[in-house]
Structures are given as structure tokens and as C-alpha cells.
């Protein structure tokens, strides 16, 4: 294990060095520049080798010695020392393997996909930065370090979503993703601070040792910590109600969607909950928010996790049914599957959630890369313009089909089946309505995936202008490898993985009819989907443009009455109006406040320009107003304050450097004077 600890920092460092090296690629001679991907791929392959080494070392360690840690002192803080360190255990080793395998596949794929892009080397630089940050997140042995890398993956996600920043949608999507996830991260950070106060340490090991004492002394606070940490997971893993950023993130290049927004980064929230699982399990005090004296619900943090997961699973699956953009269907599918992982964590334990994370990482990366291959071949993302690609892109088709089968839960032969059965089993034992949501979601999943395959690969080509062609080998090779990893041999890996990830956990008690129900709904979803989109049992011409028609023509003979259930179709088609809701409430209110703030800015400005004494008086007024504003808009306080201060200072920007220096000195004098006056 010691040698593994020596290797582990390199796993983080190598991709980071590749990132630094590739930043300079713009200055390389042209022939080298086109081969800049070699730097990134070499680094990630070496990281993969390191991950394998670590996994072997962890697997081969004696029982009870399967956790290895190493910390370095970093910053003294009030008599204690913050540390930076590495933690190697089964969970970290599995995540390392998943991240490095998918990242390697995606980088090789990107060589073909991004060929000829003007910022080719920059793309690989960002991918390397992301890989480095994600691996650092996985290897962290304390919450603060995890948080730092957490934000770093957020940053690289922002950079990569906005990679084609010439497109205004990509710019907006990148900003939206960053801001929305920040909302969750705020909760994460508060939870981190509160936890530090309770446990006096942020190292996982130290926290877990103190859990019992904390639970005894402050049960409510522990629950608050768990819920706040879960806020971070809600943001990062695109759970309801912060799921709105993930579909928009599809504006980024498709390999990015596969790596970051399907397989790894969005799974970081699941990983966080899994990592802090002992804390979640220890927090048994239920949270019971009340409105006007009426208790809305009572839920322990784990129940809360499962409930959010169930809502998200159903929400994502229903919206996915009515999307026409191939990547957006997959995005909503990802949201839904992340919901499943949360259910698994909430009802079944670390292994159940993480097992689905692992299988999902491979088959969803496969599906995204496959959709990228389709987009590459056809030049469009709109499924309504595709059709009949089965013959033209055979490799893509077959690998995509394997991914679909895995996601839909086709029994025995495919990976997704095994992990989904575990989740349903756990839900069955825990809560009837979570179980019902899980089953309904499973049906919808099978249905929308069949719809996706039917619209894309079957039927006749619907747009005569599109001349599809199979993608080059460096794109299809990763597809085949990932397809191999989406097959059902995970069944045999399961007991071993279980021991590896969660040595203390126990097996779920199997219930035969739950298994059959799962198989039944999956097959039913596929059959219904096939009847509508692949072998239409009624007018095929209508079926081909079936998506908008779906509600109307689902059951032949009902004459389209089904779709005229008032509002339902429109509601789902518009994604339950979440974006509009957030726009009308939060975003608009923020803008209104900023506008008020702007008017108010101009008072500040005049004040500063005229004389010192006068400015002091004004400053006092400003302080008062700022206070009022902050108190008024406590909810929007942070954003508003920033805007006010920024706007006020903007007017001070005369552009004359001496004015700046003068302000700096006056400010320094004021601060130093205060310091003396207060007698520190």
C-alpha cells in the first residue's frame, strides 16, 4: 500500500502537467500542434496505469488494511492544522478506474471528433485539467480538499460547456451551469463549516470516529450537516430542483457531455454522499420543516436523499420522453439515472448507489459517444431529421444498441439490469412510493430509449440532404471498448465489488417478484416503444413524426384523445416550466433589485468625488442603505451586494493610476487607523 501511496499523487499530477504543457501548445510548430493530443492521451493512459496499480494494491491488501492514508500539513488554523492528503480505499480505487477508463476512451474519441477544430489543443488541455481535478476529488482524504477539487471540476465543466463560446447558447449554458451548481455548493460549504465546528476536523477518518459523540451531543446539527452537504450533491448531480443546468450543458462538445455530464462529474454528487455515507447514516434525527405550523414532511437525511432521487428519476424520465434533440434525451436520461443512484444510496447503502454509478458511467458514456458519432455522421442533433442510420453506421448502431439495452435494463446480458435490480430491491424494502416511482421510471426509461433508437436508426432517412457515413476508427474503437464494459459480466464482479466498496455492508434480501416486475416493466417499455416507433401498428407516416404526436397516437383507435388530456402534454413538453418558473421568480427579482441598486449607485459615486468629510457622511448613508438592502433581500442578498459594490466602484474608475493609488492609501490609512482605534 505504501508504494500505491507513492504512485497516487502522480495520478493527479500527470494530467495536470499535460494541462500546463498544452496551454503553451498555441506556440508550438504547426506539425506538433496537430499532434497535441498525444500529450493528453499519454498522461491519462499513465494515470490509468496508476489507477490499476492502486486498485490492485487495495484489492491485495490484508483485511483491515485496505485503507491507506497520508496527510501533509497545509495551513495552521486557530491552533489546529488543516491537512492535504490522499486516501486510498475500495471506493476511491473503483472511482479512479471508472474516471481514468472513461477519460481515456473519451480522449481517444476526441481525436476524431474534434479534428480540425481551431482550438484543438485547448480542448485537450481542458480535458486534462478536468481529469486531474476529478482524480484529485476522488483521492482526497478530507472534505476541504474534496471541496477544492469539486470547484475545480466545476470550473473545467464551465470551460468545456462554453468551449465553442462563439455560440451565444453555449456561453449562456456555461454560465447557467456554473451559477446553478454554485447554489448547491453554497450549501455544501456551509455544511463543511458546520461540520468543522462539530468535529474539529475535516478528515474523513477523524469525522467518522467522532460521529457517535456528535450524534449524541447535537443530533439536529448533524442532520443539518448531512442535508447541507447533500445540497452540494443536488447541484452537482443535477437533482431536482437544481437539475435545470444539465440539459443546457449539452451545448458543449459531445465528448465533454460523455465524460463530464454523464459519466464522472455529475456522479461526483453521488460519490460525495457515498463518501460521507457513515455521516448520513448516523444522522437519524428527522428533518421536519413546517409551514404556518403545519409539518410538511418528516425525513431523515437518507430518506430525504431517496425522496429527491425518486422525484428526479421520474421527472427526468418523463421529460426525456418528449425531447427531440438526441443529446437532450440522453441528458434527461442522465438526470433520471442520477436520481436512481440517489435512491440507491438512500435505500440500499453505498454499494447500491455506487454500483449503478459505475455501470451507468460506462453505458452512458457509450451512449453519448455513440450519439456524438451520429451527430458527426449526420451533422444534426435533431432526431426528426435522422432515421435509417442502421445500415449506414453499423458499428455505431450495434454499440449504441448495447448501451440502450444496458440503460433500459434488458435482463441478464447487460450491466444496467443488475444495478437497477439492486436499486429496485432496496426501494422495495424501504418505501412503497419510492419503489413505485422507481418502477414507473424504469418503464419510461425503456420506452424513451427505444424511441431514441427507433427514430435515429430505424425507418427511412427523413432528410434527403443528410448523407450519413460511419465515423473513423479512433471514434468507434472507444465505442466498442465501452460496449464491452456494458455487458452483463458485472454479475460476477458484483459480490467482489460489494466487498470492495462497502466491506461493512450487508446483502439485500432478494425478493423474486420484484426482480420479475423489473424485467417486466423494462420489456413492456421496449415493446410499447417498438410498436410506436420501430414497427408502427398504425399509419407509419404519422408514427415517423411521432414525437409531437406521441400523446395523440399512443393507443390506436382512441383517436388521439389521450393527448388531449388538458395540459399534460404541454406541461411535460415544456419540461414542467422549471426554467420559466426560475426566470419569473428568482432571476427576474434579481434583475429588478440590481436596477434599483444601479440608481442608488449614482449617489455613492457623487459622494466619493466630492471631498473627504462629505464622503464620510455619505459613506455612512451608504452603509445604512446597504444594510437595508441586505436585510430586505436577505434571500438575494449576496448577489445584490456584489452588484452594488461593483457598480459603485465602477464610477471610481477614472483610469488615472494615481487616483487608484490615492484610494488605496486612504483605504490603508482608514483600516490601519481602525485597527489601532479598536486596539488590536
Amino acid at each position: 500500500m505504501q508504494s500505491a501511496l507513492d504512485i497516487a499523487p502522480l495520478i493527479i499530477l500527470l494530467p495536470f502537467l499535460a494541462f500546463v504543457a498544452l496551454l503553451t501548445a498555441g506556440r508550438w510548430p504547426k506539425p506538433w500542434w496537430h499532434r497535441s493530443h498525444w500529450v493528453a492521451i499519454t498522461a491519462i493512459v499513465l494515470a490509468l496505469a496508476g489507477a490499476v496499480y492502486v486498485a490492485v494494491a487495495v484489492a491485495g491488501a490484508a483485511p483491515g488494511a485496505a485503507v491507506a492514508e497520508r496527510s501533509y500539513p497545509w495551513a495552521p488554523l486557530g491552533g489546529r492544522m488543516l491537512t492535504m492528503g490522499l486516501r486510498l480505499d475500495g471506493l476511491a480505487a473503483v472511482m479512479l478506474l471508472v474516471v481514468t477508463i472513461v477519460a481515456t476512451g473519451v480522449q481517444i474519441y476526441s481525436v476524431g471528433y474534434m479534428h480540425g477544430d481551431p482550438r484543438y489543443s485547448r480542448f485537450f488541455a481542458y480535458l486534462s485539467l478536468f481529469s486531474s481535478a476529478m482524480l484529485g476529488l476522488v483521492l482526497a482524504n478530507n472534505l476541504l480538499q474534496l471541496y477544492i477539487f469539486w470547484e475545480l471540476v466545476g470550473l473545467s465543466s464551465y470551460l468545456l460547456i462554453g468551449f465553442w463560446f462563439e455560440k451565444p447558447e453555449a456561453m449562456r449554458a456555461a454560465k447557467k451551469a456554473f451559477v446553478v451548481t454554485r447554489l448547491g455548493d453554497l450549501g455544501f460549504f456551509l455544511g463543511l463549516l458546520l461540520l468543522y465546528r462539530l468535529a474539529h476536523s475535516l478528515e474523513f477518518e477523524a469525522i467518522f470516529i467522532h460521529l457517535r459523540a456528535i450524534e449524541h451531543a447535537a443530533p439536529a446539527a448533524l442532520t443539518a450537516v448531512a442535508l447541507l452537504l447533500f445540497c452540494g450533491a443536488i447541484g452537482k448531480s443535477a437533482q431536482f430542483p437544481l437539475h435545470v443546468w444539465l440539459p443546457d450543458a449539452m451545448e458543449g462538445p459531445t465528448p465533454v457531455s460523455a465524460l463530464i455530464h454523464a459519466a464522472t462529474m455529475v456522479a461526483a454528487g453521488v460519490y460525495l454522499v457515498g463518501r460521507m455515507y457513515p455521516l448520513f447514516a448516523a444522522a437519524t434525527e428527522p428533518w421536519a420543516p413546517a409551514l404556518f405550523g403545519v409539518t410538511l414532511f418528516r425525513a431523515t437525511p437518507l430518506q430525504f436523499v431517496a425522496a429527491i432521487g425518486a422525484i428526479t428519476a421520474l421527472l427526468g424520465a418523463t421529460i426525456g420522453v418528449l425531447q427531440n434533440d438526441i443529446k437532450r434525451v440522453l441528458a434527461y436520461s442522465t438526470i433520471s439515472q442520477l436520481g436512481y443512484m440517489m435512491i440507491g444510496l438512500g435505500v440500499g447503502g453505498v454499494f447500491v448507489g455506487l454500483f449503478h454509478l459505475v455501470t451507468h458511467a460506462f453505458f452512458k458514456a457509450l451512449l453519448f459517444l455513440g450519439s456524438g458519432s451520429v451527430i458527426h455522421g449526420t451533422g444534426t442533433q435533431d432526431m426528426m431529421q435522422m432515421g435509417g442510420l442502421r445500415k449506414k453506421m453499423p458499428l455505431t448502431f450495434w454499440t449504441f444498441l448495447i448501451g440502450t439495452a444496458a440503460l433500459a435494463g434488458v435482463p441478464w446480458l447487460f450491466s444496467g439490469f443488475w444495478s437497477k435490480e439492486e436499486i429496485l430491491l432496496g426501494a422495495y424494502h424501504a418505501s412503497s412510493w419510492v419503489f413505485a416511482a422507481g418502477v414507473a421510471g424504469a418503464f419510461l426509461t425503456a420506452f424513451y430509449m427505444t424511441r431514441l433508437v427507433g427514430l435515429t436508426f430505424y425507418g427511412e432517412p427523413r432528410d434527403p440532404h443528410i448523407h450519413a457515413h460511419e465515423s473513423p476508427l479512433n471514434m468507434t474503437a472507444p465505442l466498442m471498448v465501452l460496449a464491452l464494459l456494458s455487458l452483463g459480466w458485472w454479475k460476477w464482479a458484483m459480490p467482489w465489488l460489494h466487498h470492495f466498496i462497502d466491506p461493512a455492508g450487508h446483502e439485500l434480501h432478494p425478493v423474486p417478484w420484484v426482480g420479475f416486475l423489473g424485467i417486466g416493466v423494462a420489456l413492456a417499455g421496449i415493446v410499447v416503444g417498438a410498436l410506436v416507433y420501430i414497427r408502427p401498428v398504425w399509419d407509419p407516416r404519422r408514427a415517423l413524426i411521432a414525437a409531437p404526436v406521441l400523446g395523440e397516437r399512443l393507443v390506436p383507435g382512441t383517436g388521439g384523445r389521450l393527448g388531449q388530456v388538458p395540459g399534460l402534454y404541454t406541461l411535460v413538453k415544456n419540461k414542467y416550466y422549471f426554467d420559466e418558473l426560475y426566470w419569473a421568480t428568482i432571476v427576474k427579482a434579481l434583475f429588478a433589485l440590481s436596477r434599483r441598486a444601479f440608481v442608488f449607485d449614482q449617489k455613492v459615486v457623487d459622494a466619493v468625488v466630492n471631498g473627504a468629510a462629505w464622503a464620510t457622511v455619505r459613506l455612512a448613508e451608504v452603509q445604512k442603505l446597504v444594510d437595508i438592502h441586505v436585510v430586505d433581500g436577505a434571500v438575494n442578498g449576496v448577489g445584490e451586494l456584489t452588484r452594488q459594490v461593483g457598480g459603485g466602484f465602477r464610477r471610481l474608475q477614472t483610469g488615472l493610476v494615481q487616483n487608484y493609488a490615492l484610494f488605496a492609501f486612504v483605504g490603508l490609512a482608514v483600516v490601519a487607523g481602525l485597527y489601532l482605534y479598536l486596539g488590536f
Partner: protein
Amino acid sequence: MEIPLSWYLILAAILFAVGVYGALARRNAIAILMSIELMLNAVNINLVAFARYVTPRELTGQIFAIFIMMLAAAEAAVGLGLVLTVYRNLRHIQVDEINLLRS
């Protein structure tokens, strides 16, 4: 110890304030550079005086002063390079007429 420590401190304070005034009020960029050198000198006086009076058995203060001198040299070189660049582009170096920062 015939000279009280506070004499040095007062001298350094006044010198520093003169430097501040020059840096804030002079129009010529080179004059500002000179004022900055004055401020650095004031700091050095403080450091050496403290080293002599408070910790006479250690050399930390003097070492610091040496590094400040080194940085002052680097700063003067780079500062003058900047001034020359500005001069080449604008044909003057009156800082109160340069407001490129305000775009």
C-alpha cells in the same frame, strides 16, 4: 544607545510620507518611480533600526533590507522599461493624462 529608537522611526515615517506624497502628486512617471524608491528607503531604515535595537543578536532585519534593495533594483529596471514603452507609444509620460485603464 544614545539615539532613541523612536527617532529613527519618526524619520522613516516622515520620509515615507514624503514618498507617498510624491507618488500621488507628481505627474511624471519617472518622478513617481523616484518617490517609490524613497518609500522603500524609509522601510529599510525601519528594518535596520529594529534589527539594531530590538534583535541585535539576529540579522533578520538586515537580510530583509538586502532583499528589499534587490527588489528595488528589479522594480526600477522593470518600471523604467514600462515608462519607456509608454513614452514610445504616447510621446509623453504624464500619468494624469494616461487613462487607458478607462475603456
